[in-house]
């Protein structure tokens, strides 16, 4: 007994001395300092500067020259910019819902206590992990060539060959298909979400004679809504910035048919050195993404359902 008491005392003393040696209120800042410096230098400063540059004419060699709204006004008269934007919307509308729905569907199948789930999950996950590799773009180019795998498979079903890169829609489709093919990580996130939905709910619903479709809309969707929401926001942000696909696979063609905005920005920046003009475009893109993100956030109020443990996000 005595020993414990003295131990206690000693430890109390130590705690006190530790506190005295102490940690100032600012100690934690020391640890986050590198991130703070990085944030100021590599995020905040460029963010503000790009806004400023969008009101200037700047070619990297001479100093930026203030031109007011000229860049923005020119943008709305620029046929390539308009084309770029409309292609971008077409792409996003095609890719994002397709990927989300497909990922969710496969995740739901995998969640049905299926044997071999690990194999399937891995098989589906690999493309999304390797996804941004240039080799995958090479592969895609080969698949959709006129004499490539895609047309050969179609021929096996008696479908005449498609000129994938010859027209806007199929060309855009190849890029969207590549990203949908890389649905693995979205699916893994859905799967984790689904696994946290208690199975008893479905059993109870079945007993009550609730149809599968009703179960999906009344149980799965509400309980999965935070996950759907997360995936939707992330996929939108990524899709609006898509660059590798058009750059590597279609080179933006045919006739700017896949010339997504990020590619136009890249060309204006690093080929034409019209930095001010490119900055203005990137701000338009930023505002578009922001509006979409905010819309999703806003409407998520009506459909995102956090259960009690999910709600404990003191960080939000």
């Amino acid at each position, binding site marked *: 007994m005595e020993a414990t008491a003295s131990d206690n005392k000693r430890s109390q003393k130590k*705690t006190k001395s*530790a506190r005295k040696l102490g*940690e100032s*209120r600012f*100690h*934690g*800042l020391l*640890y*986050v300092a*590198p*991130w*703070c410096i*990085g*944030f100021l230098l*590599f995020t905040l400063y*460029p*963010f503000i500067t*790009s806004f400023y540059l969008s009101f200037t004419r700047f070619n*990297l060699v001479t100093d930026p020259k203030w031109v007011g709204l000229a860049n923005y006004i020119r943008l709305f008269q620029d046929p390539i910019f308009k084309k770029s934007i409309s292609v971008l919307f077409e792409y996003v509308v095609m890719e994002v819902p397709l990927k989300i729905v497909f990922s969710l569907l*496969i995740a739901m199948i995998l969640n*049905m206590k*299926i044997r*071999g789930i690990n194999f*399937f999950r891995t*098989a*589906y*996950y*690999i*493309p999304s*992990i*390797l996804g*941004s*590799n*240039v*080799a995958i773009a*090479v*592969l895609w180019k*080969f*698949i959709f060539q006129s*004499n490539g*795998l895609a047309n*050969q*498979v179609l021929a*096996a079903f008696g479908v005449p060959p498609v000129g994938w890169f010859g027209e806007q829609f199929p060309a855009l489709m190849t890029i969207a298909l590549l990203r949908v093919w890389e649905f693995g990580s979205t699916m*893994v*996130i859905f799967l984790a979400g689904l696994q946290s939905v208690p199975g008893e709910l479905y059993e109870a619903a079945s007993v009550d004679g609730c149809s599968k479709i009703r179960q999906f809309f009344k149980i799965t969707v509400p309980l999965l809504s*935070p996950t759907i929401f*997360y995936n939707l*926001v*992330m996929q939108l*942000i990524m899709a609006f*910035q898509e660059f*590798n696909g058009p750059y*590597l696979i279609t080179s933006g063609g045919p006739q700017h048919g896949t010339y997504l905005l990020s590619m136009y920005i*890249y060309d204006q920046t690093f080929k034409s050195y019209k930095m001010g003009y*490119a*900055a203005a475009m*990137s701000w338009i893109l*930023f505002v578009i993404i922001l509006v979409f993100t905010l819309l999703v956030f806003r409407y998520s109020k009506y459909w995102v359902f956090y259960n009690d443990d999910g709600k404990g996000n003191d960080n*939000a």
Partner: protein
Amino acid sequence: MLDALVKKQVRKVILYVILIAVSIVMLYPMLWLFGASFKSNADIHSSIWFMPKSFSAEPYRHGWVTGSEYTMGHYFLNTFKMVIPTVIFTIVSSVLTAYGFARFEFPGKKVLFSLLIATMLLPVIILRIPQYVMWGWFRVLDTYTPLVLPHLFASDGVFVFLLIQFFRSIPKDLDEAAKIDGCSRINTLIRILVPVIKPGIVSIGLFSFMWSMNDFIGPLIYISSVKKYPVTIALRMSMDATGNGYDENQIIAMSVISLIPSIIVFALGQKQFVEGLTTGSLKG
């Protein structure tokens, strides 16, 4: 009763058919790429079957020396000059930052944390031009510095966020106990907490390896001399040079070579990849 059983079986069969069909769509293209890398150029488009009629190592021999003045070995070395410091910097800086956010109270913490989350949603495209101009001032264009250095400052908010989740799952009593034993805060982190969050650290290490290894637009913007090209850009260069139809198998072989490190890393860290993805994104 029997009817329901049959129905259940039929449903199961349908599900498996779907899953297997999707697996084929997912894996066959890669299998085809692998097979085509041993085919002759004439053989590549002759059938959809991936197995080559005769195996030839020729595409690999050509692929390895590439069409340029350097070999794939050289480009791989460049890639690793970029990837290895990136991974190390990312791990160290993300652990420190996450520790700060997860275990300390300090003025302005709420604001800083919100900013951290905001950076995860910020489209990076908007930062590219000023960043490029800035690296130009520092006279480090055409070096790996712009691609590597930011990682020293925990530039990937996602990783910090993921580690914060890991830290939060450890009871604070552990820190208290260490403190009582006279362990300083930094020692507590290194000796006690790091071993516990090791799975998280492995996860971010793997992801940062993969991202940096496969990064395309970064080196495309910053690296201009062929001598310093990483594998991704070298591959893209050969893709352009090969152009229409000639020496296709060489570029395919190069593609396969370029995928090997990523595939090995994925095979080794499969579990961590899945865990990292689900922890980082969901428990927010």
